[in-house]
């Protein structure tokens, strides 16, 4: 792989992704929602100064959980499938590049676009929180978790994209995956919990299967340096990992990123047709 070629592809992909209106729609949607929540949360300014983790902060995490995966999945789903559908992919493949250069160039470009989208959303939210005197370090930590989650969802979007030939199919599949991660998976966890009443370790494992929940744990840990608010599973996590917990969670998300990008690359590289 030649870095220069990868970056050339990445720049092109970034340009393309930045023209994706959904990216901005979701980023602005999240930003506006977070801005509004921040404003509502500080309606009693003195109380907000008590500095706690309340419903407002919880809603912020909720908004992130809804919007960030959408950004990653929709951008990711478009990356390969839409070029394949338009026919531009064939011409790109015929250039003096190998598939790894094309794939990782595209992945990097899309990742930059996704990070830009998340940064925009957080920037807007940050303005809303500024009057509240929020903690910048915590806010940046939250941004970091959101970037990891966005990259996980981008990776999953890329897998979908590599396996489909039409942009619309890819986008549809991405939305279904989103639904699974955001809602259906959790319903499964609820069902399993009610049926099996797993021990805290089992419960934690059930929860950690879903990268969105991993993000949530990381975000809550950043906000309050403990997970005990999440009941037995959270306490178990704290007890088991202690101060290593954020690293464990980050490693899980990085694992998801590596696995999804790797799988997407293999699907793209091993495909016998264009």
């Amino acid at each position, binding site marked *: 792989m030649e870095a220069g070629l990868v970056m050339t592809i990445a720049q092109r992909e970034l340009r393309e992704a930045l023209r994706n209106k959904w990216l901005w729609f979701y980023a602005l949607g999240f930003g506006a929602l977070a801005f509004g929540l921040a404003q509502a949360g500080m309606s009693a300014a003195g109380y907000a100064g008590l500095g706690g983790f309340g419903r407002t902060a919880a809603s912020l995490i909720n908004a992130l959980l809804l919007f960030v995966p959408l950004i990653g999945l929709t951008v990711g789903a478009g990356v390969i499938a839409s070029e394949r559908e338009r026919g531009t992919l064939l011409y790109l493949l015929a250039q003096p590049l190998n598939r790894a250069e094309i794939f990782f160039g595209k992945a990097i470009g899309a990742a930059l676009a996704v990070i830009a989208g998340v940064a925009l959303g957080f920037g807007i939210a940050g303005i809303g929180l500024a009057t509240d005197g929020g903690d910048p370090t915590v806010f940046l930590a939250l941004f970091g978790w959101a970037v990891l989650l966005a990259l996980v969802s981008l990776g999953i979007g890329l897998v979908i994209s590599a396996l489909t030939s039409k942009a619309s199919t890819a986008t549809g599949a991405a939305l279904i995956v989103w639904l699974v991660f955001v809602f259906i*998976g959790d319903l*499964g966890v609820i069902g*399993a919990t009610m049926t*099996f009443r*797993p021990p805290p370790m*089992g419960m934690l*494992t*059930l929860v950690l*299967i879903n990268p969105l929940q991993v993000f949530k744990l990381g975000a809550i840990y950043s906000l309050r340096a403990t997970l005990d608010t999440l009941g037995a599973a959270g*306490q178990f996590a704290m*007890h088991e990992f202690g101060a290593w917990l954020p690293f464990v969670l980050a490693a899980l998300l990085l694992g998801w990123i590596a696995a999804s990008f790797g799988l997407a690359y293999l699907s793209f590289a091993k495909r016998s047709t264009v």
Partner: protein
Amino acid sequence: MKTFLTGLMLLLFTVACAAQETGPQPPTLAYGQDICDECGMLISDARFASATLDLKGNVHKFDDISGMLMYHMDHPESQVRAYFVHAYDTQTWLRGETAFYVQSPQIQSPMNDGIAAFADRATAETFAARVQGAVYEFDELRVQVHLTLHSTN
């Protein structure tokens, strides 16, 4: 997801089977984490920590032996399958039904009921002599706790 659930079920199944083969097993206590079912306090002293396993498979954990006995006096819906107490000297699990108990005001237990458990009568009697306490077997202890601590009003 599906495979994980299958795996989990298998795991639970094997655990359940293993438990069946070797009889009731004492639970693992997380000291400083687990909460006494009777008084709601943290369980942090292994010398007095005790537990029961009831017929429905529920585990109850206690910070004090008297707490365990009184909890089950107040909760007849939970029929005990096995009592577990810690040996005061070695801090290993014992079956509560066959242990020997010393009660003395000189023993400082979390709820100050002063009951310690031992694996055999000889050790219990030696200890009782030291702290000027009385030695009881399990059923005698239950009567004693009922009369002195668990009085009704």
